[in-house]
């Protein structure tokens, strides 16, 4: 029956003062407080609300990353998701992972779980990519309602009010679809103590990207710095990009 996949990402908590590592290879993450990406919280809340309104039967929380992401999945379970899926990626692979890999994983899971909706946060507060939702929809060839500030289910269609540069845009898309949550979609609930207790009993399935047919992320090639726009155009012409 009607099932929703919600993506949750474990990120450095929004209130933490970010510090760059001494070797400039990244930011300090060891011992730093992490929590669920705020936009993912909004996505979870929307999914749980849809379930409470009986539009959907089951909410599955999904996260990709090392063991620690199970904490984030448990938080989603405590907010009301029914079960979780942990796609295990660690170490160098995790650092190299980007929206394209995640989208491939989500697309594969959406098909495997026969989801009617995939709800994601519009972007993560660590990389601000704002790509995963859109890429996932493209890979699945599903309609997408991004930057959603209001979601209404109407039979087999979803009415989405989107926050765009010019104001608000209302679209009607058919399910299955991908939605990404924007700030004003809802106010996420605090997990209640009884729900935290119940979350302990809910299942989190464990799998690897390979199990879903998703390959290793490619090594990222180094870039080149140029001084002027003319140099940039010349280089792009030289390597055949334009």
């Amino acid at each position: 029956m009607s099932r929703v996949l919600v993506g949750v990402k474990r990120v450095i908590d929004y209130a933490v003062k970010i510090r760059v590592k001494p070797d400039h290879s990244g930011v300090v993450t060891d011992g730093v407080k992490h929590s669920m990406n705020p936009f993912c919280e909004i996505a979870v809340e929307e999914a749980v609300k849809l379930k409470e309104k009986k539009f959907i039967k089951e909410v599955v929380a999904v996260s990709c990353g090392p063991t620690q992401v199970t904490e984030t999945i448990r938080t989603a379970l405590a907010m009301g998701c029914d079960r979780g899926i942990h796609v295990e990626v660690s170490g160098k692979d995790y650092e190299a992972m980007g929206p394209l890999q995640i989208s491939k994983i989500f697309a594969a899971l959406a098909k495997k779980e026969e989801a009617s909706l995939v709800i994601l946060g519009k972007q993560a507060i660590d990389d601000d990519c704002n790509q995963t939702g859109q890429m996932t929809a493209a890979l699945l060839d599903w309609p997408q309602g991004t930057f959603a500030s209001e979601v209404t289910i109407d039979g087999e269609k979803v009415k989405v009010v989107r926050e765009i540069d010019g104001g608000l845009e209302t679209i009607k898309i058919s399910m299955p679809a991908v939605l990404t949550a924007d700030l004003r979609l809802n106010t996420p609930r605090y997990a209640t103590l009884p729900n935290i207790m119940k979350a302990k009993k809910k299942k989190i399935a464990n799998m690897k990207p390979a199990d879903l047919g998703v390959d290793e992320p490619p090594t990222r090639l180094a870039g080149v710095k140029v001084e002027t726009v003319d140099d940039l155009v010349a280089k792009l012409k030289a390597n055949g990009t334009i």
Partner: protein
Amino acid sequence: MAALFKAGKALGLCVSGCRSLSSLAELPEMHQMMRQTCRDYADRELGPIAGKLDKEHLFPAQQVRELGAMGVMAVEVPEALGGAGMDYLAYSLAVEEISRGCGSTGCVVSVNNSLYIGPILKFGTQKQKEQWITPFTTGEKVGCFALSEPGNGSDAGAASTLARQEGEEWVLNGTKAWITNSWDASATVIFATTDKSLKHKGISAFLVPMPHPGLSLGKKEDKLGIRATSTANLILEDCKIPLGNMLGSRGSGFKIAMQTLDSGRIGIASQALGIAQAALDCAADYAHKRTAFGAPIGKLQAVQFKLADMAVAVESARLLTWKAAMLKDAKKPFTKEAAMAKLAASEAATFCGHQSIQVLGGMGYVTDMPAERHYRDARITEIYEGTSEIQRLVIAGQLLKEYAS
């Protein structure tokens, strides 16, 4: 042991024995999640309004309802009765985190959980539990605990409030003093003498709804701290209640009070920890930002020593509090440890409140920064639910028993 461990795990309880020491080092996952939820709530919902609640003496009714919905107003109460069904360690963590956001709100949570619901849960009949606990789990209603009188605080055995039986009713007469939550409560657990000749063995406990004919409230006390809570006298003038409103057996009131206070001490210790931690957070943050003599004041040893002493005081009191909670959860004797926790935590709170103002200097003395509120909120923790002096007597008494030949 294995069976107990399995059963405990299934119930999500913190099981004692070989796990307790490691649990002191790192809390079980569920407790960590619960602690994080309460911390998030305190940071987002209580922190921003705590100053206003204190300044205007406002009872945080909406926040209490929200905490009720989260299960924080009845942490230990079984789910069947409407509570969260968690253990005392979870309760201690909840009170600490809530108090860190707002000392007054932490007090309301503690009084409702430990002092009002606590004795009814332990000594009440099933009917009394359904009638007097369930409506008080949601945050819509809070309860209070009336033991102290104008004539006796520490001397609890000398209760002069009287209860005489008249037909199918108890008639109560007397005055209770310093009752926290009084003006906001919908019921009270109250202690009165039923047999004066039996001295402290002649005291009984009763459940009285509020408001009720024959029960009136004195003026709200104008307090130094925890100003968002109401503290007042309860005046009983021929206050009539049904016979079924006696809690526990006749003459067991003193025992009920003492056992309730034992557990309540862990709650107050947790409240004191929250206030102490808030004071430490304030001072440590300021030490990073304020510059003097060309560098942040956190570089000065004088400030560093203060922060270190504050941190040690808080952490050691916290471990004592957790230990007392875990002993209680394991159904082992915990009187001595609870008294030690309350003593250590309350003295840590006043110490941290004091030093926090010192680190902030002039800024610590004005209401723009929360340091002065922590200083004022901390002070009561050394007094209520057993003064520091009484705690020392309790600890010494237990200790000497252990060494008796």
